[in-house]
């Protein structure tokens, strides 16, 4: 199953690499708005003569650039797209990693609280509504309040960004922890060990850690997808020049090479994380993640 899933992901990456160059060709042929940016950005030149190339030649040119991880030059700044993206990720990756750490720690603690229900109902379940509110609401409100009390400094910006980005992951992790605790408590091996007189603490510490590890590790990829997809919701209000702000600027100025470079590198990064996660999970639990 691990090999199958990994093969699917790698195949989807190759399929994406073959399909993506069709878009600029279609854009040029369909006469899309701002086609001159597509031409100069995707074809990496400003010369008029290149437009005389056939669609297949344009497709091959873009595909070659894609396979060499060369997304051309930004039509806004003229810098290499790879350099701009690398600098942007250098700012955003610590925020995402910080948000993951905060989300896991607070989510784990909240999950322990949720698992202690009274009369079968979680006492604070209406607080769950707060987790569904988009993070941009929290960004705006917190930035407004902190600007009122003159609290915002550069270091606090990054911490605040990680905290806001960690809100929904906290909810997801807490739900998974609660469900895992409930599942384990109802499982045969737990009841059997309990009937043997083994203390509950010993059962949890010695036998149940792997269950938690597997369930929590399986959340890394979807949470990273969420954070990378919505990072501009925290970077823009907080004035952080990371990947989100870069994307926002690129879309506003229709910087075609930067937009495609960001989305493609994001796709590759997330597929790579999912393959890595799959292999780690296989290493931890070979029985569940069999090689067949």
């Amino acid at each position, binding site marked *: 199953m691990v090999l199958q*899933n990994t093969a699917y992901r790698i195949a989807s990456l190759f399929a994406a690499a073959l399909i993506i160059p069709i878009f600029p060709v279609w*854009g040029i042929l369909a006469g899309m708005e701002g086609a001159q940016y597509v031409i100069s950005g995707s074809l990496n030149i400003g010369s008029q003569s290149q437009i005389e190339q056939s669609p297949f030649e344009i497709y091959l040119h873009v595909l070659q650039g894609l396979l060499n991880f060369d997304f051309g030059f930004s039509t806004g700044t003229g810098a290499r797209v790879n350099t701009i993206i690398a600098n942007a990720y250098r700012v955003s990756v610590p925020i995402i990693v910080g948000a993951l750490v905060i989300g896991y720690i607070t989510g784990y603690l909240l999950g322990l609280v949720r698992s202690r229900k009274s009369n079968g109902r979680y006492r604070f379940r209406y607080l769950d509504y707060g987790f*569904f*509110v988009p993070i941009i609401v929290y960004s705006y409100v917190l930035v407004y309040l902190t600007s*009122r009390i003159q609290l915002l400094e550069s270091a606090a910006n990054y911490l605040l960004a990680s905290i806001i980005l960690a809100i929904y992951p906290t909810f997801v992790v807490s739900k998974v922890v609660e469900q895992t605790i409930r599942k384990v408590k109802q499982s045969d091996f737990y009841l059997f060990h309990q009937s043997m007189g083994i203390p509950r603490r010993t059962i949890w510490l010695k036998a149940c850690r792997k269950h938690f590890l597997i369930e929590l590790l399986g959340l890394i990829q979807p949470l990273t997808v969420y954070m990378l997809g*919505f990072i501009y919701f925290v970077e*823009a209000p907080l004035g952080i020049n990371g990947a989100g702000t870069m994307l*926002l600027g690129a879309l*506003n100025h229709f910087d075609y090479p930067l937009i495609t470079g960001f989305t493609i590198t994001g796709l590759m990064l*997330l597929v790579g994380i999912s393959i890595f996660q799959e292999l780690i999970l296989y290493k931890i639990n070979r029985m569940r993640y069999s090689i067949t």
Partner: protein
Amino acid sequence: METANQNSTLIAPGHEYWLGTDLAGNSIAEATLKAFMLEIATVVVVGAFIYWLGLLIARKIAYHQGSIPVIVAGMLQTWAMIPALLVGILLLVHLGWGQLNVILVLIFLFTPTQSLVALEKILNETGEDYVLAKLSYGFTWSYIIDQHVTPNIKSSYRAYTLSRLPEVVLADLAFNFLGIGAQPPWPSLGGLLFDGLGFMASAWWIWLPSVVSICLLIFIVVYLHERIGVEWKWRIMEKG
């Protein structure tokens, strides 16, 4: 209703303009109401389409027996792991900006995962005894899927679709915030938030009504899911 006035830029809330005006002199109250209506329309249209399309695709796949549904389910699972928002941005860059394109892209992005869930429910249900009994009576596989299996999974599938509506709201908000959704003069909640970005402290009335509208919409959607989804679950349990 308040009307726009070219000389009324960045006026704070008061008697003349209940929620103030923006940089262009447009009434924030009118803009927020229009944007809220647009958001509701988007959620309803996308929700309806992904519900029916997902079920239709799942049924068509389930008509085939053997390994085909399993292979297709594997491919759909791979799609589910792709960051949909990034794909959506790439599609909108080429399709062009506009709320109609956003609706089409949202339907395109959400339908595969909907069909995956519907397919899994159908495949799980086909293992039940009544399906084997119907087969032994001589009913065709497609007839059993359409007339017996699909009605049994519809209520749980409906609850699942309702649970995805907050994601639809969030994705639409993201596209509009990035400026690739509804274009001026038509306002959007994400667009109003973006407009208020440069006036966080000085003109809070530009972004605050949007924030309140977004919270209200999310609460309505989540409450509907809890009420309707839970009610359907109890009905199924009562029927046994």
